[in-house]
């Protein structure tokens, strides 16, 4: 596959502050690539370096094999969709979309044809004459995308464009964006702090923290096999413990937690006995009232502290009788657990294979 974007060992420092540290990645043509991280992790700086608004302190950015050093934003084959879209309020929809084409000095007939084409493609045929303030949030979104796509960029950069929308519309736009990207086949680089946006839409996600990439992987792998404690905590919800390795055999280890409980867990690192570790178990991996016959299973009794009803995403908080760390447990809304109340004692447990552990640094 052709590589559309190649970022090689890029760093950016502002005075004493390092915003981006030695980041390298490549994106294949036609992929949806997301950069996920908390605010202030350097993802916007990285995106602005690709767009050309900031020059990297160290490293190279190549677009379709061409080194972009010294190219200003108006001469790069990439376009950026801004967080607040930055549609030009002094122009109507068609003029907004035609702006870039006019800068390329295309003929009027050609511009009109392309504008009509792209408007039909994003599902807004006949909207050319509307003013920007006549559009709804979702329509503005589509005009912003059309304004960039009409220029046929090598890479389309998106800076959290769904952040300003309300929840319902955001869910809808996620699906639409994914569909649109598959349809036009343009390479998308999407930055967000919302893990659900990244997981739903992307082919690959890079999790960024403190200016570094922690892990670049498919959404499924990020969730199932996080490679650092930060990824485990940031992507999806997790219950975390600190402890030490007490014993180890057949890819399983026995862990003694700081609050003095013994668990068995799968390990993917080389962790000899005595190593301090941090380990995680997902809320939905904890089973309420498990069968007695399961092997390699951690069992305990816990007291329900509170029930957090949130539809399909409902949770309960429970305190193990032997421990001091409260657990978050998924509560499927299939009526099976409707009888549970605060203060009840329940049997819970999880398979050793569904816990992940890391060396604690």
């Amino acid at each position: 596959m052709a590589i559309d974007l190649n970022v090689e060992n890029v760093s950016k420092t502002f005075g004493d502050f390092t915003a981006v540290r030695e980041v390298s990645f490549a994106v294949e043509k036609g992929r949806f690539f997301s950069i996920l991280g908390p605010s202030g992790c350097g993802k916007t700086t990285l995106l602005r370096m690709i767009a050309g608004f900031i020059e990297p302190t160290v490293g190279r950015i190549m677009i379709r094999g061409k080194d972009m050093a010294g190219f200003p934003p108006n001469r790069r084959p990439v376009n950026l969709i801004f967080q607040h879209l930055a549609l030009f309020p002094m122009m109507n929809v068609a003029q907004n979309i035609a702006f870039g084409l006019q800068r390329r000095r295309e003929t009027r007939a050609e511009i009109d044809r392309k504008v009509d084409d792209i408007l039909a493609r994003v599902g807004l045929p006949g909207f050319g004459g509307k003013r920007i303030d006549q559009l709804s949030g979702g329509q503005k979104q589509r005009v912003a995308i059309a304004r960039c796509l009409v220029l046929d960029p090598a890479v389309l950069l998106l800076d959290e464009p769904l952040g300003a929308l309300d929840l319902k519309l955001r869910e809808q736009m996620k699906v639409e964006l994914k569909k649109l990207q598959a349809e036009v086949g343009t390479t998308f680089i999407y930055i967000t702090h919302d893990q659900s946006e990244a997981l739903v839409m992307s082919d690959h996600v890079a999790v960024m923290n403190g200016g570094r990439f922690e892990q670049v992987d498919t959404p499924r792998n990020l969730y199932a096999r996080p490679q650092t404690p930060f990824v485990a905590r940031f992507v999806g919800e997790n219950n975390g413990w600190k402890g030490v390795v007490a014993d180890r055999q057949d890819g399983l280890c026995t862990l003694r937690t700081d609050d003095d409980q013994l668990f068995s867990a799968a390990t993917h690192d080389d962790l000899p006995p005595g190593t301090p570790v941090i380990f995680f178990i997902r809320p939905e991996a904890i089973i309420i009232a498990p069968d007695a016959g399961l092997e390699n299973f951690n069992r305990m009794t816990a007291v329900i502290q509170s029930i957090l009803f949130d539809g399909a995403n409902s949770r309960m908080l429970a305190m193990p009788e032997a421990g001091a760390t409260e657990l978050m447990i998924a509560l499927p809304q299939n009526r099976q657990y409707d009888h549970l109340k605060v203060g009840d004692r329940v049997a819970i447990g999880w398979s050793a294979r569904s816990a992940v552990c890391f060396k604690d640094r």
Partner: protein
Amino acid sequence: MRSRRSLTFLLFITPVVLWLFLLIVLPHVDLLLMSFHTEDDSGAMVWSLVNYLNFFQEPVYWRTFMRTAIYAILVTMITFAVSLPVAFYITKVVSPRFSGFLSLLLLMPFWVSELVRVYGWMILLRESGVLNHFLMVSGLLQRPVEMLYNDVTMVMGLVYTSMLFMVVPLISVLESLDDSLIEAAYDLGGGIFSIVTRIIIPHAMPGIMSGGIVVFMLTLGNYLTPNLIGGKNSLWFTEQIYNQFIASFNWNQGAAFGFLLLVLSSSIIWLGLKLTRQKLSQVVQ
């Protein structure tokens, strides 16, 4: 309740109406009537159009009139061209901490009176002035050159005098311009020219017009700067009005000239608003 509200309204509106009526409307009505009167042979006041006819029949009057109008428009345009980069620099380029300080620097010269500022320019530019002295010392000039009393210096002086009134409204409109619009235009392939003409100027239009109106009216009605810097070579229409009132003691002629100037400024502003498709109510906000 209703009557009390209308009472407070009356209380606030009365001074405004009185001020407008006594100081603006009444004297203007008097001047208007005066401009249509003239002395007959016996010295009595009679109705007449002779003051306006004089204006059209005497070339020096209407030539000065046209000159003043054209130079006032020119000064307004130059002031805009100089002020836009200044306002852009203050609002978008320097850090916000520094921009307040820069605005203050712009304001500083206005703490002294216009007269003092104009004399400042005269000290710099006259034949025995500072600039000539340095040019002579550095050997660039053999003999001093009179830089005052020509149109170029006068236009420069008028631009200097009115710049603040253009920069301030431009700063306030440019502050409301979202930086990401400029970045988006840049990202979509726009160069400096297209960003200025397609994004910045359309956004700043209300500020440009309100600054333009103020600068144009101040320039058109300016007496000091054209008189002192322009001198006898650069006649300004306000000087004609002054001459009629004070030198010729022909108040009727002066009143007619005053009204012609009022008609001129109103119609040019109306034309400007029409051409840029702005509404006066929008511009004065």
